[in-house]
Each structure stands twice: as C-alpha cells, then as structure tokens.
C-alpha cells in the first residue's frame, strides 16, 4: 500500500461519537465511533436493524431522504467534515456508497448507468469517463459484453457488479458497500469478494457492511460489531473471527463457552 503518513491522515474516515435519530425521536445510533484507514478494508457486522445502513447513510449524506438526522458526534473524511452535508459533498470528497439491494437504474442501459456514476464529479472530460469505463470493464468483463442492455434485464450478480462499477466511475478513495452479497448465489458471493480485494489492491479503501460475516471477516483488516445502535465489539478481523461471541452469533458455529463479555477487544 503506497501510504505516506500525511496522505494516510488526509484519506481516512473518522466517525466520532455519532448519534442518529429518525423523525427526531427514534434513536438509531448511539455514540458510534469507527475509523477506516487509508487503503484499508473495514467491515461492519450486525443483525437486521442494528443500524448498519443508518451509519452508511450518515456518512454518504442520505439520512435526510429517510427523515433521519445526525443528533450528535462528527464524521470527517480527512480534512472534510461530512456530517450534515449533502451526498454531493461526500462524492466530491471521494466517498461513494453502493446502496443495499444494488439499486441500478433499471430502465437505463448498462452504459448509461456507468455514465451516471460520474455525474457527481461535475464536468469531467470524456477521457476520464472513458478511463473509468475501461477500469470497470476490465474488472467486470460481463458488463463490457452488453453495454446497451437495460440494466433491469441483468441477473442479480451482474446488477451487483454494475452497482459497484457505477460507484467506481466516481473514482472513489473510499467505497461504502452495503450488503453486496445479499441474495446472490454462493459462487457470485465469492466473485464479489474477489472484486472487493481487487478494488482495494488498486488503492481504494472499503467499508463493508455485511450479514455474511464469514466473507466479510475474511476480507477485512478490522471489524466492528453493531448491536441495536451501539458498537459492541471491535478489533482486528482475524482476532474477532476467533472470539466465541462472533463465532456463535455471526458465523453460526457451536461454541463451548457462553461468555460474550470476555469476547472481543472491548467496547470501542
């Protein structure tokens, strides 16, 4: 990883003591802190409703579309404050989210979907768009075969690739991935994992939100476990994968002991 110290500081996501509420009353996140270092892969695990997607919305600035708001704490990416900003600010700063459930523009062609990924960057020269498209097509040859097909007619796996490719068109330095394995066949899940590794190797940091803990922990350097709006555990991914609580709750393994309290590396 080519990371000189100042660059590292400039390109890291810091979430500090974040509180988020929906409709001014329903508290979704309480005092959540999390860091994604430059070029790193961090995973955020948790059950349905734990607040994983809420955290991503807070970072990408889409909370307001869901009548949610940040009620405390800070989010910054390098020098740029991202809390309370609109999604354009996040995209401009280099933080791009791939939404849960893929959400490709079904009526637009594959190529138009990719073009739409570059919209947030303002006037980009056609050369940059071509470059981005090239990169995506190298990563996903399947998409290169059908640029003029409507995205809604692609298979689930292809749509997930397109959703990731679309985000890559914005040349992100940090990619937020919300459940990329959701609803995909195991073979496709493995392919997505490969892709995440490849994207990371090209220098893009990844914050991976997953219910598929096995896949996520194998990819990540660092992991956080979110439970009912609070970070319960955090630590290096391989260590966390060995703890009883994570093995029992998220990897579905039988364990002898029953002491989640002495599991992880303490509450973050």
């Amino acid at each position, binding site marked *: 990883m080519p990371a000189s110290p100042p660059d590292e500081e400039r390109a890291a996501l810091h979430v500090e003591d974040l509180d988020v509420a929906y409709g001014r009353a329903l508290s979704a996140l309480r005092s959540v802190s999390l860091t994604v270092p430059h070029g790193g892969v961090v995973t955020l695990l948790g059950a349905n409703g734990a607040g994983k997607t809420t955290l991503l919305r807070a970072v*990408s600035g*889409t909370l*307001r*579309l869901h009548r949610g708001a940040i009620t405390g704490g800070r989010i910054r990416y390098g020098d740029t404050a991202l809390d309370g900003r*609109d*999604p*354009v600010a*996040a*995209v*401009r700063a280099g933080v*791009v*989210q*791939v*939404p849960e459930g893929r*959400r*490709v*523009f*079904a*009526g*637009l062609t594959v190529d*138009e979907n990719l*073009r*739409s*990924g570059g*919209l*947030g*960057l303002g*006037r980009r020269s056609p050369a940059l768009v071509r470059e981005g498209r090239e990169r995506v097509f190298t990563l996903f040859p399947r998409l290169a075969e059908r640029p003029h097909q409507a995205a809604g007619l692609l298979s689930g796996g292809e749509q997930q690739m397109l959703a990731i490719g*679309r*985000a890559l068109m*914005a040349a992100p330095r940090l990619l937020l991935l919300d459940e990329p394995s959701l609803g995909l066949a195991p073979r496709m899940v493995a392919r997505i994992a490969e892709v995440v590794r490849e994207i990371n190797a090209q220098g893009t940091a990844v914050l991976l939100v997953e219910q598929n803990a096995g896949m996520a922990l194998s990819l990540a350097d660092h992991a956080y476990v979110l439970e009912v709006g609070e970070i319960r555990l955090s630590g290096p991914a391989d260590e966390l994968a060995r703890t009883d609580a994570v093995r029992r709750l998220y990897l579905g393994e039988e364990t002898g002991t029953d002491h989640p309290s002495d599991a992880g590396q303490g509450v973050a």
Partner: protein
Amino acid sequence: MTGLLDNLLSGLALGSVYALVALGFVVIFKASGVLNFAHGSLLLLGGYLIAVLHDDLGFAGALALAVVVTAAVAGALDRFLLQRGEPDPHAAHVQTIVTIGLDIVLVTDLSRRIGGDLLSLGDPWGDSVHDLGPVTVADSRLAAIVVSAVVIGAVFALFRYTAWGLSLRAAAEDLEAASLMGVRLVRVRTLAWCLAGALAALAAVFLVAFPAPGLERTTGQIALKAFPAAILGGMTSPGGALAGSVLIGLTEAFVVGYQTELHVLGEGFGDVAPYAVMVLVLLVRPTGLFGARGAARV
C-alpha cells in the same frame, strides 16, 4: 380525399402543439412526481407576455423574453413554493395539490388583465395560407409542425446526451441511488420545471395562432387537452407523450372534420374526444401506451 388530407394536416398541427405541452407535463412528472395543474396557466402567462411585448420588441424578441420569463417563473414556483430546500420523496401528492392553488392564483390574475379581450400575439404568419397539392393549409400550422418537431427533437437529445438529461432519468428511476451518485436533485428538478415552462410559452404561440382567434383568458384550459395526451403516453415517457399528443390531435381534427357524419355523438364532441380516447386506451393498457409497470412514482 381532400377532406382526409386536410384533417390529417390539422390533426398533426394540433398534435404537435399538444406535444409541446404534454412533454412539459412529462418532464415535470418525471423530475418531481408532481402532476402540474398549473401548466395551463403557465402557458397563458407565456402567451400574455408575448401579447403585451410584441409591439415594442417585435415578435421574435417578445417570444424570446416570454420563454425566458415563463421558464424562470416555473423554476421559481418549484424551487421556492414546492421544494423549499430539501428533496422530499414523500411530498409529491401535497405538491400536486399546491399546483392547483397556484393555477387558480395565476389564472385569476391573468384573467383580470386580459379581461374579455382577444389578444393578438403578432406572429409573422398571420392568416396566410399555402397550397400543398390538393389541400390549402395555414402557414401557422406548418410552422407549428416544423418548430415542434425541431424543439421536441432537441429535448429528446437533451434527455439522451446531456448530464442533466441523464441525471433526470436516473433520479426518476431511483431518487436515493441518484443522490448517492452525487446528482444534485434540487437543481436537476428545478431545471426540469424551467424547461417545461419554456415549452409551455412556445406552445402558446401556436395554440392561439390562426385559425384560432387569439389569446383569451380560457386559452389555458385548451392546453389541458395535452393532459390526456401525456397520460395516454404513460406519463413518464417523453416518446409516449409525443405519440399520445399526435393521437389526440388527429382524433380531435377528425371528429371536428366529420362532425356532420358523427352527428349522432352530439355537437362539440371534438372537445370530449381526447378524453374519450384516453379512457378507451387506458381500459386496454392501464399504464398508458409506453408506461412502464409501476411508472407512477408518487
């Protein structure tokens, strides 16, 4: 035979004017999920501006200024009265109701100014006609067809090739996903309203040109015939709006042209025909001619 060609041409001319209006409906609905009931009054505003300005500025100058002002008014209505800052995907219904109120305010004020007059827009075609083979056709109708075709073509190109067009189509498909791509939802939407306003002002010219008598306070209501055209086309499809408009225009022209033969339907069925066609088409295709399933995003 002459009657057939006659009706065909006037149907096309009517249809191309309706298409300008219907395209505005569709652009607004696509961008904001709002059915703009104030569209007729925007058209009336555009026409009124041309009527009062053309003496001083000449027709072209008046038209240009009216198009710009109507676009600005439409954009401002959306930005400051409907959107008011944050994009809110759940507010489309309320905003649709608000446009009814806006329509009443605009029409009331413009009616007061126009009174019982018939205003001329000072268009260059006047009542001159051309002989095209066996039929005689008003120049204003030929101009309507040509100008509409060019403008509509340009709008389609905007949709397909510009960043704004792509932003609009992406946002219409999925507001949140578009916003995650950094699409400026507020701006894209306001520009859509501006475009619709500009199209409405342009449509006013041809709607009141010969053989219509001139601009009167009810001109805005005539524009509402573009409404069934837009619905026919599926409401979210610009191509559908175009097809729907031509269909409505032809229907109206033929019903009026063969009025004596269709006497059994009663006098003035031409005014009803667009709605009858809309109902018939929707009975067979509930989502319109080109509407996608679930096209109603409100």
